[in-house]
């Protein structure tokens, strides 16, 4: 083959939508940062940027869950690919119905390979030329990536840091038009760590109803709350506006690698059925893969038999690490946290580059930090907020403290004399 470039090959320059979508990924930023790392440096790397805490021993799933899956593999009952045994969507329906005033049934549940595939499917189903979708800023880039990939226009509404990262409801009304199909909310929130109140979610539901749009509620961090606001599932307002709830076992059971999630149709009035959205979801199912069958097989056991102790232990640990993180950050002059996290694994903090010498923005900050201190933070630009940072505090307390010490030390070293 000679190297006369793309001219000879007709498949050169593949789908531009993929490239556009791929830009919106946290991975991209992390890969760039890791490239700045001295992998052979004397000090161990401290990641405060991840979404997956399972590499810390204290964040390990329950042995019962592991055994359930091992048993399912060994049983030989789940190697095949018939439609999923009804026991698993039923187990998910029962699990979710526990928090709702109405019952979900197996037909309301679509099992997915993690919450990522749930996002993929939902965006595929709504993605039509001309449609637009409302996403939060800051937000989780995969929402945008899949929306963009499926040719939807994305419009961003603000989360307001001074009001506990609440949704700016007026901006939603201003943004929406006849082509808006849905509002996406994330609760408990990634990246901000806030948990919405019943009243606030009710307002969002009313707004959605008024605008004739549905709510896509990404609740992958459901129940991982440790502050004053309890977790309120958006499905509670399913009678006001139809809700598609996305979730997974990934966070609450700390097994993101197991790839088991769901889309739940929380729509007691049957609007999604009437508008054939449910048919669309079913149709699309025939075009995609689903979770490994033996994991599906283990789900009833996992959901019914995980004891509360495991859940409380995880929540306690997150509460402790959130406190540590908030406390340490308060002591760093150039960084401010507008709202103490109450849920999920993250907090968003504002970076004041004017107080720093020779650091021009959040990406620069993170690149230099990683190089000098082997600590990885996620620049806010990856989430739509330049000059902010997302900090993950879900790791073991000693390493967390060590990491934050290094951040402090870095900031002191780069402090501008005038500040």
């Amino acid at each position: 083959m000679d190297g006369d470039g793309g001219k000879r090959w007709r498949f050169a320059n593949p789908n531009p939508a993929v490239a556009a979508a791929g830009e919106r990924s946290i991975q991209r930023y992390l890969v760039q940062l890791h490239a700045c790392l001295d992998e052979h440096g004397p000090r161990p790397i401290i990641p405060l940027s991840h979404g997956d805490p399972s590499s810390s021993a204290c964040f390990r799933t329950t042995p019962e869950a592991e055994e359930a899956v091992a048993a399912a593999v060994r049983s030989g009952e789940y190697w095949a690919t018939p439609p999923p045994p009804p026991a698993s969507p039923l187990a998910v329906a029962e699990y979710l119905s526990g928090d709702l005033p109405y019952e979900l049934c197996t037909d309301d549940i679509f099992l997915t390979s993690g919450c990522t595939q749930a996002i993929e499917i939902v965006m595929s189903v709504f993605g039509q030329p001309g449609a637009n979708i409302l996403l939060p800023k800051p937000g989780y880039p995969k929402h945008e990536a899949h929306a963009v990939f499926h040719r939807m226009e994305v419009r961003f509404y603000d989360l307001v840091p001074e009001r506990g990262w609440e949704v700016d409801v007026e901006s939603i009304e201003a943004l929406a038009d006849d082509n808006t199909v849905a509002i996406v909310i994330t609760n408990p929130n990634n990246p901000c760590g806030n948990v919405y109140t019943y009243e606030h979610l009710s307002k969002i539901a009313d707004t959605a109803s008024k605008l004739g749009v549905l709510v896509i509620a990404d609740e992958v961090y459901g129940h991982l709350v440790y502050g004053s606001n309890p977790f309120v599932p958006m499905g509670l307002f399913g009678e006001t506006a139809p809700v598609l709830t996305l979730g997974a076992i990934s966070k609450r059971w700390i097994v993101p690698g197991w790839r088991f999630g769901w889309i739940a149709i929380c729509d007691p009035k049957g609007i999604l059925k009437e508008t054939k959205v449910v048919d669309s979801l079913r149709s699309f199912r025939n075009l995609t893969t689903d979770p490994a069958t033996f994991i599906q097989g283990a789900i009833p056991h996992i959901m019914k038999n995980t004891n509360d102790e495991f859940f409380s232990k995880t929540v306690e640990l997150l509460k402790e690490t959130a406190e540590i993180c908030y406390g340490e950050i308060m002591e760093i002059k150039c960084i401010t946290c507008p709202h103490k996290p109450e849920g999920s694994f993250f907090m968003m903090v504002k970076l004041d580059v004017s107080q720093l010498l020779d650091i021009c923005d959040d990406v620069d900050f993170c690149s230099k930090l990683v190089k000098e201190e082997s600590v990885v933070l996620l620049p806010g630009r990856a989430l739509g907020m330049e000059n902010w940072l997302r900090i993950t505090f879900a790791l073991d307390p000693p390493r967390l403290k060590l990491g934050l010490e290094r951040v402090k030390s870095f900031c002191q070293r780069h402090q501008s004399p005038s500040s």
Partner: protein
Amino acid sequence: MENGGAGNGRPPASAAAWNFAASGTLLGLSALSVRGVLGRIKAGMAAEDDGGRPVIPMGHGDPSAFPCFSTTPDAVDAVADALRSGEHNCYPSAYLSSDLPYELSADDVYLTIGCSQAIEIICSVLARPGANILCPRPGYLFYEARAIFNGMEVRYFDLLPESGWEVDLDGVQALADKNTVAMVIVNPGNPCGNVYTYEHLAKVAEIAKKLGIFVITDEVYAHLTFGQNKFVPMGVFGSVVPVLTLGSISKRWVVPGWRLGWIVTNDPNGVFQMTKVVESIKSYLDISCDPATFVQGAIPQLLENTKGEFFEKTIDVLRQTADICWEKLKGISCITCPSKPEGSMFVMAKLDLSCLQGIKDDMDFCCQLAKEELVVILPGCALGYKNWLRITFAIEPSSLEDGIERLKSFCLRHSKPKVLLET
């Protein structure tokens, strides 16, 4: 501020008041799925008939429910061990290199959620307005479904029944134009059961090179051959034309539910890199989902420890059932198999409707057969080949014999009186 609830902002009742609606394209696409077609056929069937006969499935792609096709305990151990150890992210590049004249590296292998997701990824990556891909007919219509969903056009080239289902190379050349990006081959073949020779694959490579397109080779049934022709991976011709090989553990290890597959770039000349196909695949994988990590982690053990006897045993059963199928079908006059299957789990058989009465086409045949005889066979219309049948012989030999007997009995019962040919 809204004060919500009843009165002000009350949700409108009718569908017209909601801004969202279903995608018309999507609703039509699932008709192209084997699962969808089988679903319709089974809808007319009772779970068990009055005579107490069990259902005999011969329409499926997954034989793992049958004890003779169970996977090996070595595979199960590998996954259970990986699960308990917390290991993840390993690459099957060494295994896949063993059949090739060059080494693959871990960078050439992308793990996917089964071969299905591999197809999804490729169609997403290739799709740009105006692009078209060439697919075989008869063929696995999932390619078309995904291609259309991504806005690509699909053009079909013929597989030639009289030549062992080889690719109609002249047809390929006639179909391609400047917007053609790739051609798909399936080897060993689903639904035809063919296994292509080295010489034929070399010709396919030459044509693709001449047209400036690459080859997507679906080798999900790799190594499952039991006839004269040995399995030759298309990757062998990677230096002639860039090849994307799709595969998985689903068939060879009989574990389709484990969802572990791959895309491999067989491209020693680095064309995919240069044309940004690699970058595109990586971008898509960044935003997409991947297989359960402990299944990934089990792969090295699974690949190393699975004993040769397990593979031989599977092939022996397939050889046996292929023989039964081939021989017994000869005794049914309205059904003809143009060539004996040599690989995969399927055989294509032509249905002669002129010998039958009260049956209007292949779909009708299969629905009535399911209802009357509790035998499930896939109609060729699900594969772009109307009035043919795809028969899956990967079931227990005794069940297969039973199934073919029932098929024969159905055909006799529905024969037109003057056209009874005894063999």
